[in-house]
């Protein structure tokens, strides 16, 4: 699906979960997260979309941040999930998998039921 045809409302609901999932795999900052989302196939995501999400996740205690000096510019704010963030991501992964299963059944009621997608959990859970 072309990125410019994506419904922003669809992305709005899952973007916090995706950001948390990316941060699970490695500490990162806002601009880098945009690049990682783009590399994952979500082209068209801008910093103006990601920064408010990071801000809310931090305010809700799901991620924590630290300033890391940059050799070429001002310090960057790097983010990592907190333990609460880990649990929230696991919960969100399960809910997303359930939702995907329901949506698939509704969209293709005659299709054979298959196993839902594996939820994006913590690396430990995935192992």
């Amino acid at each position: 699906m072309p990125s410019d045809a994506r419904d922003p409302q669809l992305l709005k609901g899952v973007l916090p979960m995706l950001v948390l999932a990316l941060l699970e795999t490695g500490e990162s900052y806002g601009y880098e997260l945009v690049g990682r989302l783009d590399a994952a196939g979500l082209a068209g995501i801008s910093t103006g979309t990601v920064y408010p999400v990071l801000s809310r996740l931090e305010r809700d205690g799901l991620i924590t941040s630290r300033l890391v000096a940059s050799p070429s510019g001002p310090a960057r704010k790097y983010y990592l999930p907190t333990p609460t963030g880990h649990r929230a991501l696991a919960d969100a992964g399960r809910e997303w998998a359930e939702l995907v299963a329901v949506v698939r059944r509704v969209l293709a009621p005659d299709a054979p039921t298959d196993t839902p997608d594996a939820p994006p959990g913590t690396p430990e859970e995935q192992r």
Partner: protein
Amino acid sequence: MTTPLPLRDRAALAWYLARVRVWLTGAPRGRARSVVVDLRREASATAAETGMAAALADLGSPRTLAGTYVEESGAPLGSRAVRVVALTTALVVGLAAFGVWRWYSVASTPRLTTLGYALDAGFSELATTGQQVALDATEPLTVGVPVKNEGPVSVTIDTEDVELVQVRFSTEDATADPPSFTFDPDNGELLERVVLGPGEEVDGLRDHRPGLPAGRRGLGRHRRVRAVGDGAHPLARHHHGPGDPPAGGLWVREHVGHLGGPRVRLSRAHGLCPVPGRCDPWGRRRRTDGGSRGHADSGRPRL
């Protein structure tokens, strides 16, 4: 080593953040400050990689970005921002309008020195025709407007907190034809027409507050009385100071109850009359069939 941003980039970033801050007024103050600090740092850091123009473009519209932050904080989008902008605009426009009005009031009041006489509670010359006088007084005052033989004149009195408005017309020329004046209240009805005989005086009183005691007729607030004289007679002598008005003239007596005084405007009415002597007191040409607008049948001669 950190390289400082060029001045142009700093200016662009400051302008962008200022607009964000405007639209962040719907968020809690501390939260808005934190957002702006984060944005400044991240945009500066990104600009070091992509350039400031690209960094700001990637952030999107300041209003949209701020709206996203405000939405995340649970406050209604831009409600305070709209209110602040609207109130600021209204305040600026209001102050500008007041300034223009005030300037016009002062500029169009050529004889402010007459205020001294007016505040003596006596009869004073306020203006000659074509001039406007604004009065401010905290004490009851009586002002007089002499009507010289300058053709029909119109006296308009805008009143605020005026207890009594008395318009007196008199003539000292016993041989002259009697002058005539007409009162015209706000609603345009013709309430009273006054025609003076030689040497006569008459007070024209307008009563808009029937609750006042007898003889204390008032106009209430923000009422307007208009009197027009035909000005075809040698009437007034200039008179200053307290005391009864001299014989002859058109006098406006005002008792001001509270702060805020009347505004008296004396203007030529005959400018409206293309043929002097053939117009009614309002400066309009008399109709050939003798009809006139709404004159009450008071038994007095028609104008």
